[in-house]
């Protein structure tokens, strides 16, 4: 969308000619086509680019691996994609302190490979391939192991950001225990690129566990799922023992899976105990480390394909049955096909819906009507553009929108960063 006269030469002057290219169709964000893709190589270059953007009144959308560009509402406008692809180095890794400092353009996969050489890992395991560290921070991505290690906000200990007006600022540090100043690392987690560009991030790490066992059980009644989950959660196998507790429901069948990681005698004992608990509920299986890896690669993926509507529903774990019922009920009424998965141990459920568009919109509205008065959220994480035009992707009954807007207007008064994508159209 060429609404502005963008000073291309100046941009090239900042990052180098070869790092400014005209945007192509695949660079569009929810159908909004930017003019340029800019790849700065340093924080200073990033700052200069942002200064220019602010001066010229341009809208900027930061991008890492581009795996979650569909999150949020369609942007009001995008002039520049600011790609972090060139800033992909590990700044410092101190195994003895269990911390790492990275540039945010580094792919998570590459980071984990690197850390594995010291038998360490970052405790975040989102299923999406190709995500960068910056991306997982901005999107607050998580995977099954969040039960054990928490989410990004529990692991991030320092941050360096570039604001819309080019100001470079850091918060936190490289020590795990730190209460000096405000915790901006947390503020920026999940901010979806609307507060500034996340240039560097520091994390606390964990040792890679020696081995693993996976125990899973099949059930044919969705109401049984919650029972199994509750039983496991309140046994001695709960948090800090269980590494993951996930569920899937597809085609009338449900599977609940638990992951135990640790030393051989420990995981053996735990999987035996879990077997005892689960045995009465249905057909059970136990997998070793390697089979388990393959299992989880499949099991942890989101239950939707491109073109589907994908929902993320947050609710208290004890209400899992109600959540499932609301989705299944609504889907049945409208004839939509539905698959479900979720972090059953922490109360996050994913629903993948496919079918006629009108029906899908109805499902979302109905589920929101049922769930939102009870607290929690129903967010559309994936949807075709036509559906997004009919719905606000953010579904929450919260009372903090005003505060959210005030925060945004302090950090980005000109609405330079990803305008329109966030909560409340911010």
């Amino acid at each position: 969308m060429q609404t502005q006269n963008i000073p291309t030469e100046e941009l090239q002057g900042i990052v180098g000619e070869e790092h400014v290219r005209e945007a192509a169709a695949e660079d569009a964000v929810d159908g909004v086509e930017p003019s340029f893709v800019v790849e700065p190589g340093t924080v200073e270059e990033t700052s200069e680019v942002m200064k220019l953007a602010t001066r010229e009144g341009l809208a900027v959308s930061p991008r890492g691996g581009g795996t979650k560009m569909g999150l949020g509402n369609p942007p009001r406008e995008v002039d520049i994609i600011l790609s972090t692809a060139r800033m992909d180095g590990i700044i410092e890794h101190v195994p003895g302190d269990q911390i790492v400092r990275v540039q945010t353009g580094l792919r998570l996969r590459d980071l984990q490979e690197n850390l594995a050489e010291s038998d360490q890992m970052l405790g975040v395991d989102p299923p999406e391939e190709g995500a960068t560290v910056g991306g997982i921070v901005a999107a607050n991505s998580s995977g099954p192991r969040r039960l054990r290690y928490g989410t990004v906000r529990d692991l991030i200990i320092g941050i360096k950001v570039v604001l819309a007006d080019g100001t470079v600022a850091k918060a936190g540090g490289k020590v795990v225990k730190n209460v000096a100043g405000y915790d901006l690392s947390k503020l920026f987690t999940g901010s979806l690129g609307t507060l500034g560009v996340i240039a560097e991030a520091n994390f606390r790490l964990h040792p890679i566990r020696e081995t693993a066992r996976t125990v899973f059980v099949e059930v044919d009644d969705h109401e049984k799922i919650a029972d199994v989950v509750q039983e496991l959660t309140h046994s001695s196998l709960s948090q800090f023992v269980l590494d993951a507790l996930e569920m899937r429901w597809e085609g009338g069948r449900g599977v609940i899976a638990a992951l135990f990681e640790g030393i051989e005698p420990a995981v053996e004992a735990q999987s035996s105990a879990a077997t005892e608990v689960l045995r009465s509920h249905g057909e059970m299986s136990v997998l070793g480390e390697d089979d388990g890896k393959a299992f989880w690669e499949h099991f942890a993926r989101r239950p939707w394909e491109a073109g589907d509507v994908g929902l993320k529903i947050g609710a208290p774990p004890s209400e899992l049955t109600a959540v499932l019922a609301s989705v299944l009920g609504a889907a049945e009424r409208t004839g939509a096909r539905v698959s479900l998965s979720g972090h059953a141990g922490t109360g996050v459920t994913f629903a993948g819906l496919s079918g006629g568009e009108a029906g899908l919109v109805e499902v979302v509205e109905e589920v929101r009507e049922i769930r939102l008065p009870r607290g929690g959220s129903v967010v559309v994480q994936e949807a075709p553009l036509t559906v997004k035009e009919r719905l606000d992707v953010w579904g929450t009954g919260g009372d903090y929108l005003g505060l959210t807007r005030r925060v945004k207007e302090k950090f980005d008064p000109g609405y330079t960063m990803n305008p329109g994508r966030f909560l409340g159209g911010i």
Partner: protein
Amino acid sequence: MDREQLIETMQEILGPEGVIHKHEELRTYECDGLMNYRVIPDLVVLPESAEQVQQIVKTCYDEGIPFVARGSGTGLSGGALPIESGVLIVLTRLRRILEVDIPNGRVVVEPGVINVWVSQEVADEGYYYAPDPASQIVSSIGGNLAENSGGVHCLKYGFTTNHVMGAEVVLPDGSVVHIGGGKAPDAPGYELLGAFVGSEGTLGIATKITLRILRQPEDVRTLLAAFKDTEEAGGAVSGIIGGGIVPAAIEMMDALTIEAVEKQISPGFPEAGAILIVELDGPEAEVEHQFEHVIRVCEENDASEIRVAEDDEERALFWKGRKAAFGAMGSISSDYYVQDGVVPRTELGAVLKKISDLSEEYGLRVANVFHAGDGNLHPLVLYDNDAPGEAEKAEELAGEIVFACLEHGGSLTGEHGIGRDKMKYMPQMFTTDDMDVMQLLRCAFDPHRICNPGKIFPTPRLCGERPGPFHMHPVQKAGLAENF
């Protein structure tokens, strides 16, 4: 509104028993756990409900009166230091546990609830609340929230911020918001709760707090190991953590601390240059295995004595000796100044050496007790207030220790917060830009700067104008409005 009217207004909201306005009584609130700074508040109010808190804050907002929130008043950085001509809002009477939700592992409490009460409440069900600062028998959840308190178990279990799931907050303008998902995870929007925890009471007052509770671990084992000096003990710490073990707790005490504790409490600690207390918890098989490793590492580092707690009493005794360390200092010195610095664990040895050098240089003893696992040090600078000049020397020495921590890649504070006490050191750790950007957050919550002003940041930032290049408002950019 003059003082008389303010008193009347507050008495109307709270009743006479909720308003303290007589001089001597106000004086008892002039400092919190840190006695170095004292300011007599203009008025002290003690609300009993969230609604009353809201009304008080609204009144302050309307009248432009600054206010400071206070829990049990045990903070060590002056975070609850009153503002002159301001109101001190004491939350000790909001002390109900509102809801216990075992199926979701959550408890909802009022801010005046004492930390340890939470664990007490859920102990029968086999649960507990993990963050355990040494002050936990008296510090309040609200205070823990403000400071993001840690404790001896935070290496493995995290800090308050990892265990707070939601909060009802009265903002400085008197409005109420609910941040964090509460019992539901992943609330959409910004991590407002994450930013609020640890904000030292400068962004608002939490009136209901949702906490996460954990199941009590299956097995707990504690040992005490004596070493020739802190260096050897530090080697053991590295060996333990290097072996891929994350102990539930790993604490170190030096010779001076051991001496004081023995004198005051007599837990029967061995005479040594340094003592390590290591605790492992979790599933039995795991704990067993890890414990063997820990013992091996201690032996490899020439531990002169290794004592495994035989039973719960002995374990309790080890911890009593550690947790009473600050108080016990009174027995070997008339005054002390406790610091709270963090260094990367790999730098512990070097920093301890630096502290020892500084201690010699200044001629003041420094006792060291600290969370060896996460590098959070509590050097206790011992001095005699009555000896001329010693108090100033002690403060200077404490400052030097802080600089040493920063020099080695650490932080100004691991648990106690910046408050008033460490404000002057902030520029050593953060640039002006860093602090200005942090204060943007404050401007969003508290544009009139009435909520605990004068804490954390040495140079307050004006919230109105942001210096810098002109930027167009999106409405204007869309051609729908003119600039005026």
